[in-house]
């Protein structure tokens, strides 16, 4: 699959292969994410979705593969990428308030030693406003519900003012109101020309929320606009069983 010359992709993954403990988790992934899409990454459990984004971000070691962001290496373009990890991976009993947690998103821009100041606080408060968590700014994070925690994580990423947002299962374990709030923010980001990648677990909502989708099951099965490729054929290839989903054509 040749990359088209001259077209700049937001993210370009070449030949990515990851193996945990001798079991292949991701094989030979080629993925090109065009700028400005709101893309879902779907696949069964163990398909390597989280691993894919962790490998893209350099958190997970890969056996082979390169990742380019806007044509340059990820390391150079770090500031353009904001990560929203799974909230289940954090110890929420950590002593910090909501505002503090969101301000952590500014640390990358500050560099070493410099302290977050008024500018950073303002940015954090704005992000909290955007996700609807401003009244909770002084709350200890352990007192938050799942949905509220997710919003805090999203705010932390928004503060980074990145061009690309990568999220790992943001709708897992959140209430319906939060889900709607988040997807609206993601759509807004897309309106602003940003690129959003979301590891998503709920096939039902893919056509409604996303415009692009990538089917992943250790290998990349297909990627493209939802309208074109979100069909029974690809669902079967990915999930291995006869999976019928009502797709609004």
């Amino acid at each position, binding site marked *: 699959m*040749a990359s088209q010359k001259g077209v700049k992709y937001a993210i370009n993954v070449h*030949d990515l292969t990851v193996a945990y403990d*001798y*079991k292949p988790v991701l094989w*030979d992934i080629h993925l090109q994410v065009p700028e400005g899409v709101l893309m879902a990454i779907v696949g069964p459990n163990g398909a390597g979705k989280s691993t894919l984004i962790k490998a893209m971000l350099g958190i997970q070691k890969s056996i*082979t593969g390169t990742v380019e962001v806007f044509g340059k290496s990820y390391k150079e373009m770090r500031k353009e990428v904001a990560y929203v990890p799974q909230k289940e991976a954090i110890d929420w009993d950590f002593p910090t308030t909501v505002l503090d947690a969101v301000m952590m998103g500014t640390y990358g821009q500050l560099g070493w030693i410099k302290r977050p100041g008024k500018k950073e606080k303002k940015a954090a408060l704005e992000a909290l406003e955007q996700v609807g968590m401003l009244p909770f700014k002084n709350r200890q994070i352990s007192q938050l519900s799942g949905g509220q925690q997710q919003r805090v994580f999203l705010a932390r990423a928004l503060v980074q003012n990145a061009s690309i947002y990568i999220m790992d299962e943001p709708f897992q374990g959140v209430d319906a109101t939060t889900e709607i709030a988040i997807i609206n923010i993601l759509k807004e980001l897309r309106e602003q020309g940003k690129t959003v990648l979301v590891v998503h677990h709920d096939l039902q909502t893919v056509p409604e929320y996303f415009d692009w989708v990538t089917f992943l099951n250790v*290998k990349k099965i297909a990627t493209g606009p939802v309208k074109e490729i979100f069909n029974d054929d690809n669902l079967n290839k990915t999930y291995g069983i006869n999976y019928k989903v009502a797709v609004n054509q």
Partner: protein
Amino acid sequence: MTQPQLEIQLIAAIVSVACAIPGVFLVLRKMALISDAISHSILLGIVLGFFITQDLNSPILILLACLVGVLTVVMVELIQKTKLVKEDTAIGLVFPALFSIGIILISLKANDIHLDVDSVLLGELAFAPFDRLFINGKDFGPKALWIMGSILIFTLTLLLLFYKELKLSTFDAGLSAALGFSPVLIHYSLMTVSSVTVVGAFDSVGAILVVALMIVPAATAYLLTHKLKSMLMLSVFFGLFSSIGGYWVANLLDASIAGSMATMLGVIFFTVYLFAPKKGLLANLFKEKRQKSEVQLLAFLLHLHSLNEDNDLEERCVNHLYMHFRWTKSEADNILSLAKENSLVYLDGDCIYLTEKGNDFSERAIQFITSNRGEKIEGIKEDYLLFRG
């Protein structure tokens, strides 16, 4: 060998077997450090027992020590329930507190009893033969032998009677509960047995060696097997070997028997850790290296396979390997020669093509990968690869 020497070894052997058995379950249940906690906190029980009876030989001491042992576990769990601190923090707070109270009580009230630091922590195995059991004037042998011997028999009996329940609740607590074997009961029984064993062994081998005897043989066995029966037998074997071997080394160096036994246990553990077939460190490093080459080879072949439809010449060239796979020159050369040796590819000038065999291999590999049955790859690797990485 003199009789005292024989007796010491016998006691050491019995202690090690008695400790190895509950130790296996502690390790499997991820509760290894409870043994450390109990072995320190029981000092308090001994001290309280002494204050009550003023008699170092009274069985009340042992009883109170056991109670304090179980109390330790109960306190730790109470604290865990409050969720104010994490699990291990609770352990790290409870046993030093109890131990400290014990030490302070001794210093304040029992000034004439010399608290020999070494004996608390190391025990006095060398003196065990001199503390003998006299009934009606007849010498029945060292007390430690009888105490630990009874504990061992008690433990073995419980083990034989409740083997199934122990096994089930350790490996599948949910199922165990569903079948009516209360995991709580089994848990506290295990804690009580551990406590009793620690108390019994404390006198002869001291706090630290008890921990070593409970955990290290079991951990070593766990590196070699996942079957409960084998694990128990191997632990017993390692415990025995270390106690006898440790004794003779201590003899040679004229040093603490307990310290020597613990050291010997460590040596055995690290030997197995390094050299165990399949799981040992060296075996793993070798396997990793081979796996890495083979995974790279597989990635390479699958990449070539995906090119078949496009016939993109640029991506077939040797140079592509360096750029897009991020391999070093030596890695790339290695993969290429491995592929050629196994007749999976052939070169046409600077470009690489899959042979029929290589094509077959790739397709079968893809099937297995996408059906998430990565382990089967080992099988087809064996079919196709004469030369491994």
